[in-house]
């Protein structure tokens, strides 16, 4: 049964991409920064339910199909916030196990409510404890204060906000239009946007999750999102590389196809290698995260995959422009859609250097050296 669903899903994603490849050009830079019709269609096809367990009304298909959807979206440089909403927010709401989260999740899956996750501080740290919002309880009311930034999508109807509280960390439901909430869009390179949210005594209806559970649930949802974003970046690389290889085969200068020049061939091989290595890193991380129980290796693999994909995509897309020459720099040509997507997606949730550092934090320096021999002091 689930094979049929997967197959349907795959066809619907490919169909969606093929139907209107120019969609991104109409919606970039214009609120809500994606096609509302396309979003309805995605919801109707069940894309936003992939990761949600069946008990909560979802499809319960797991991480691999979600990564596959994102990869196909990346191949067409689409900017609909599938990963931000269908993975990050959906996995987070499902993970809290909170009764009101289930209702909000149902609306998220139906496409009637756009939900984002706001967890980073003003300077974009990926340390959860560095989050920029503080929750305090006064006269039985929970009030949020502070600034959180880089939340996607900017047009969200509501955000799940991470805040420090007396129990450590907590997750809170914040509608965008609630009193004390100011949401400002910051435009990203690809024409999507991230939200900067200022909270001034914003009253919140209750805590979705708190303490160690909040941290664990958010870490899990973040790790899944990192892997899916890496998979989307893999698709972005695929798209740019396909255009570039075709160009090298057909563009003629000096009477020959420029792809016959060895220096360009070797450059193309280096791009392709980074694509293959990224794929292996993403697949390994997907398997590890699907293998169940939370382990530090999962965080390391997820950050490792994101660091790899962010760096590789930027390299592949940047070099693709170079291999094309001037035409690669023209917006109409379309290669720029990939480069801009790799810039935005590569930085979202933390860039390569940040995730290398997180990877390193899980893998301390191993100073046992079997090749060294002891010497007298």
């Amino acid at each position, binding site marked *: 049964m689930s094979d049929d669903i997967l197959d349907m899903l795959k066809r619907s994603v490919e169909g969606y991409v093929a139907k209107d490849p120019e969609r991104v050009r109409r919606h970039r830079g214009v609120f809500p920064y994606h096609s509302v019709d396309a979003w309805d269609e995605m919801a109707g096809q069940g894309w936003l339910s992939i990761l949600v367990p069946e008990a909560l009304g979802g499809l319960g298909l797991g991480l691999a199909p979600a990564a596959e959807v994102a990869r196909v979206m990346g191949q067409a440089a689409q900017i609909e916030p599938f990963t931000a909403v269908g993975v990050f927010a959906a996995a987070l709401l499902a993970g809290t196990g909170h009764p009101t989260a289930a209702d909000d999740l149902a609306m998220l899956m139906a496409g009637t409510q756009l939900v984002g996750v706001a967890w980073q501080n003003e300077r974009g740290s990926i340390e959860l404890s560095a989050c920029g919002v503080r929750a305090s309880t006064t006269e039985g009311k929970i009030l949020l204060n502070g600034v959180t930034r880089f939340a996607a999508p900017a047009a969200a109807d509501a955000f799940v906000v991470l805040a420090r509280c007396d129990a450590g960390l907590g997750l809170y439901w914040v509608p965008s239009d609630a009193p004390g909430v100011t949401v400002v869009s910051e435009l990203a390179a690809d024409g999507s946007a991230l939200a900067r949210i200022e909270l001034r005594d914003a009253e919140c209806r209750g805590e979705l999750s708190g303490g160690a559970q909040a941290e664990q649930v958010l870490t899990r949802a973040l790790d899944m999102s990192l892997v899916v974003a890496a998979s989307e970046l893999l698709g972005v690389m695929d798209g740019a590389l396909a255009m570039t290889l075709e160009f090298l085969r057909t563009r003629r200068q000096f009477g020959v196809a420029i792809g016959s020049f060895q220096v360009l061939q070797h450059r193309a091989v280096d791009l392709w290698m980074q694509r293959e290595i990224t794929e292996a890193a993403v697949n390994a991380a997907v398997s590890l995260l699907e293998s169940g129980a939370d382990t530090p290796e999962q965080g390391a693999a997820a950050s490792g995959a994101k660091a790899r994909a962010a760096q590789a995509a930027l390299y592949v897309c940047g070099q693709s422009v170079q291999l094309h020459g001037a035409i690669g720099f023209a917006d109409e040509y379309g290669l720029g859609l990939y480069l801009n997507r790799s810039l935005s997606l590569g930085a979202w949730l933390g860039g390569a250097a940040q995730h290398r550092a997180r990877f390193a934090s899980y893998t301390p320096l191993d100073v046992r*050296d079997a090749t060294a021999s002891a010497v007298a002091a």
Partner: protein
Amino acid sequence: MSEPVTFGVAQEQDWSSLSEDEFRSVVRTEFEAHYPEALRYSPRRLLWSENGDWFRRMARKGWIAPNWPARFGGMGLDPAKLLIFLEEQERWGIGRFQDHGVLMVGPVLMRFGTDDQRSRYLPPILRCEQRWCQGYSEPDSGSDLASLRTEAVRDGDEFVINGQKIWTTMAYDVDHIFVLVRTDPKGKKQEGISFFLVDLASPGIEVRKIRDIAGHDELCEVFFDNVRVHERDLVGDINQGWTIAKSLLGFERISLGSPKLPEYGLQVLASLADACGLGDDPVFRDKFSSLQLDVAHLGAIYGRFASQAARGEPLGPDVSLLKIFATELFQRIADLIIEVAGPAGGLAGEVAMGGRARNLLGPYFKARPATIYGGSNEIQRNIIARQVLNLPTR
């Protein structure tokens, strides 16, 4: 299980009945219990006078040819267990001996050889009485190997070989060589090459050592001056040598891309950085974690090809990426070792630092030729460009 054994000793058990974890544990226990400590992680290739005892022990045990079928005296391992065997060897720092007989000559004779050749050559290879080197490159034929000019001319039931081979590893420490020679100077260059088995004690052969830039004598020149070889030592048909040589590339291409050498480099780098007090230095840590990530992802993609090989599927030209990525990564790690070592990075041999001695230039000199041998990385990139990416030739 009780397959009749044509050559060598019978296996102590049927390895296919063990799980991969059980097999790994058997191999690891054996290596850790018996391999001489002083020979672990040698920065240079060991001489037969140094590691011969260990490999003769392996021969008596029936473990000298893990890649051969049991009926020919090998361990009869499937590809997955063979990789485990090689991984465990490297993990314990067990240097290879001049094992071209086991790795190349055996498999070639099983596939292309005659019964007579198998019965004359396989038993002494299994007993380590015959050890082999590979005579491929020539002074004017490196990357363009098929242009080789060392020639063999028929004279009755013998062939007379004249010419020169070069970059032959450890030719002075072995007793036999397999050579690619030209037997037809006309027509397409790949179609005039034959594969011969030659005793290095034959009159007319001279071996000269080449001192390398690491100060080792591992490479040699081998000169052939009217060397007579009987026709029964021609492997396969005449002019079929190129096909035979290519058939040997399969396993080599995956082993050259193993993450083991970069992992070893990373280990040296980590302990050296610790000794130099750089463990918490943020600049070093970012460089280190970047390399660490490369090693982890090399492991992921190596796993993809290894399991393809373990399922018995042929490897495509895309496997070249393993060799390129692994060897260039090893060089970047070796470069950082020298950078981190500061003034000690220029010292030869074992260097004391933080209470331990390490050969700091060991990884550097091991990494240097890795991008050249086994098909230079430039040639590997040509292969991928043409055969995987379908880039045009004109």
